[in-house]
């Protein structure tokens, strides 16, 4: 069992977070402070800490060469996240909290922003890890 500390009505802030965002996850034995109990929702889930961590998407910095000729220009770079389908997608808006509890299921939050849903084409070797 793991305890999730979730954004609640008292800690909701438009454009910063969403209700249900996971602020932290703690052992079943963790004792929260009175302020935490006041400001957050605390939910127990069956998943272990490792199970929860495994749901955080892999983030990578990718680069794209401007030319195949020798140049002093820096290659174009971008940050991407990898979804469960192994596709890499642009990170246009970085969510403050990477996971949320949505209808009892722990999910990543990158896809909640439409800006972050465009897939990009990469070399096939990228998807191997």
């Amino acid at each position, binding site marked *: 069992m793991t305890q999730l500390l979730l954004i609640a009505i008292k800690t909701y802030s438009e454009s910063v977070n969403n209700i249900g965002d996971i*602020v932290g996850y703690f052992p079943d034995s963790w004792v929260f*402070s009175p302020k935490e109990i006041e400001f957050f929702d605390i939910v127990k889930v069956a998943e272990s800490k490792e199970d929860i961590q495994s749901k955080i998407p892999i983030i990578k910095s990718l680069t794209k060469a401007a030319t195949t000729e020798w140049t002093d220009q820096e290659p174009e770079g971008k940050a991407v996240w990898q979804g469960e389908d192994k596709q890499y997608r642009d990170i246009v808006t970085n969510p*403050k909290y990477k996971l949320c509890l949505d209808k009892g299921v722990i999910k990543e939050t990158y896809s909640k922003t439409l800006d972050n849903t465009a897939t990009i084409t990469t070399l096939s070797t990228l998807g191997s890890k």
Partner: protein
Amino acid sequence: MAERAVIVDPDNGAGTDYTSLSAAEAAEQTIGADLVTDTDNMVFNCRASSSTDDTTVVDFAGWTTSSAYDIEINGNQTTGVWSSSIYTLSLTTIGVLLTLSSQYITATNLQLSLSDNDWGATIAILMSTNNCKVISNIIRYTGSGSNRVGIRNLVSSTIETNVLYGFDDMAILNTGYSGSTSTVFNNIIADCNIGVSRGGDQTVTAVNNVCCNNTDDYNGTFSTFTNNASDQGAGEGTSGIDISATWDSTCFTDTDGLGPDWSIQDVDSPLYDVGTATGQPTTDITGYTWVTDDIGAFAWQTSGGGVTIPIMSHHFTKNIGAR
């Protein structure tokens, strides 16, 4: 103007406001995120009354601050040597441990630990907004993963008197945009792939740093690069200090097995009084005010007070000349 101070203690000891820094950040932001309008200074004082680590990642995003109304994140390290009994922000998987996404945040006297064995980009401190400071922290990586970075700086910032070690990639990576200006002063970096790196287009001043046992101590072009020590060849940059022959047990000890100690043991240390006072931080990683122009994160601390004969002799030689 008021100071809003809260206590973060994972052990929930007497007086605790929050048991994690991430909870403190989120809740206090709801109480008042616009410190300028409220004319407040926000202070997060972190401790661990029974030595439990804080294992939550934190992103300080969504605050309105200024140079007058800022945020301090204060740990309780005071020795510059790793301790298992004080507050530690710890990450055992991939990710970014502490992100500074709002301006005018100072992170000081913290211990930050990365220890995963995984694959994927992982960073101890990500500085993504201007005018933040990372001062007097101990930052380490003890796992066997790849692509681990201590401090990744994308903006104008100050990085001073920190100790960083064990990063398989880079300890301090500056990759800011053109026009951003950063200072990297009096840090000690060891056992990394690259010590201090400057990429991108930003202006980086690197002064009084000490790098040792890294694959590459300094990488890239710095706008100002003086009084930095390296154990690779004859020193690097202006007034570079060659510590390849003098880097020995007198300045690198680990007597308790908890962590290396790079404090200056005596006036014979190669780090003693070989730096420049220009831009030198006021105090070292232990809070001690510099007397001599030592390099690295530690000032030489005279134990008995007063000026000893070896120090007088050293000053005579340095400032007047050998006879």
